[in-house]
């Protein structure tokens, strides 16, 4: 069963890697957005969101993720989701996130994919 939301982040190869645990809802989405904004204002344009420990995402949480994707797209940045549970993968796909964001099997694959981007 899903846990309460927590988040950790690190920067590797100029990429912000956000790793979440638990329900990505209003609280979770807001925390992700705050963490993103902190780095975005400092010039970070590549973001990886590792959802391995988040099996449940609601539409409010998704709206925060969409905002981040929009902001990154406006400045030519890129967001990649990794370690997606099949239900979350389908959810993000139906909500259209993958039209503007990428997905990768894991963080290493995402880093490699972002490294090849200009």
């Amino acid at each position, binding site marked *: *069963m*899903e*846990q*309460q*939301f927590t988040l950790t982040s690190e920067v590797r190869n100029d990429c912000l890697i956000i790793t979440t645990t*638990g*329900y990505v*809802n*209003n*609280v979770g989405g807001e925390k992700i957005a705050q963490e993103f904004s902190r780095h975005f204002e400092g010039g970070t344009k590549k973001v990886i969101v590792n959802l391995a420990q988040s*099996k*449940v*995402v*609601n*539409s*409010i949480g998704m*709206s925060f993720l*969409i905002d981040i994707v*929009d902001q990154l797209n*406006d400045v030519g940045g890129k967001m990649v989701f990794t370690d997606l549970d099949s*239900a979350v993968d*389908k*959810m993000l796909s*139906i*909500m*259209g996130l993958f039209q503007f964001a990428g997905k990768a099997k894991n963080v290493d694959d995402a880093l490699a994919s972002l490294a090849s981007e200009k």
Partner: protein
Amino acid sequence: MKASTPKSSHAHRLLVQIESLQDGFRKLSKAATLTDLADKFATVLNRVFPNTETRVFHRSDHANQWQSLQLGGSDTGSLLPPNDVTYTSGFLDKASRSMCAVQNLVDRSYVGLVLTQQTGGTKYADDDVVSLRLFVQLFDNAYQSLLHRRKEKELVFALNHRVLQLNSLIDTGIEVSKLYQKTSPHQLALERAASLTNASKGLVRVAGKKGEKEETFFPVGERTRKVENPSHCITSTFKFGGKTYTFKLFEKESRHGILPFEETDQLLLDALTRQVHASLVNRYLHQQELEKQKMEREISVAAGIQQRILPEALPVIDGYDIAGINIPSKLVGGDYFDCIALPDGRYVLVMADVAGKGMPAALLVSSLHAYLSAYLETPMSLAELAGRLNKVICRTSTADKFITAFVAVLTPGTGEIEAVNAGHNPVYWLKNDATIQEIKASGVPFGMLDLDLPYTNEQIILSRGERVLLYTDGIPEATSEQNQLYESTVPLQEFLIRHKSYSADAFIKGLIDDIKKFTGDAPQSDDITALYLVRR
């Protein structure tokens, strides 16, 4: 270089303004937010009006104060647009160094532009005010475009969310109906229901009839507190297997706080709980089916065992007519009968009834048959045979399993019958004078007590024309549709007397027909077994 005249400077400015209008709309149409729109708009205006400080204000309606839309700028000391709702544009000072335009926007809010010449700049002309009016209308168009794009985005999001809800409903239905999975159906449904309705938390309570309950919270660690507003909680309940399953969702989330749940949220929760209910019913039925199949396999094996134990045909005994029957109430019963020829010309008649039915009973019958056959190889008294059988059945069966049995040895030449009775029904001896004597020969059932209690022999001499009937309690206790016992309506002894002239085969057939007629369509409650011996 030729100095520009005021006229050519004016024309140039107009040209810049026209170009800025065209370019401006392209830039403004990309704005994502009102603030972003204001920033982009200020940039456009600064190109048209150099040396100008541009401030963009907004108020949600005429009763509210103007708010600056630009980040970083201080409004302290800045001129504000007039509050007059009829105001459209004009100079804000006598020196014409500040001008303003106000536009009522499509959503009835207002945008106000205040342009102030910086130090060294020239005063604004009337044409500039006209231009500013055009630009503020451009802002209105761009704002409408922003609202439309935002609305469109919201509609697409809402539409996608509906598709997601439907899709997830189908997927969840498939997942909860899987018989083997890590997550229980109600946990899975709770997660999905919370996520699809944007509930911040939820719980499933499974309550038993005796007040015991098990609660599962989502997310784990959340504890729901009392909800003050009933619209901030939705519930769906069903009962199954003596338990009440209650699903509760709390606090529908939005980006702007908690909202009341909608009707569709309740429909969604109900649909998901119905899926869980159906899944539990299906699991129960599946389990029942598995148990039934297991029982049928057991019965099939036991039936095979019993088929080999029960006599295919009874021996022909010179001077005697003998017939028997066994009709199990299930496919396999716990009754056993036989007539075994001994090497010395005598015959052993056996009638037994195991407590219970199915596989365990069949195995015990099998044991009795095997031990009896083995012991008959060795000469011993009937009482000793019974004692040995009791001991061995005690050792090989559980305390609740025992066998009632009647074992007799017939010496055909003399008609002597020596019998022991291990707790079985008395055997009826129909004499030539049409009276019946019960052969009781009492003793404890085999396997009940391992206390070396003695078995008492009883001997009779069966004269010509006399008969004995061995049977199990399935005959007197055969039950009619009206729940009456066969024995209470048709005493077996009377039947025996009424049919004393019948051959053994005819008697058995007549008895079974009579029982079937009596029981009608009532299910057979016990095995029916009988062995009938007539001395000709």
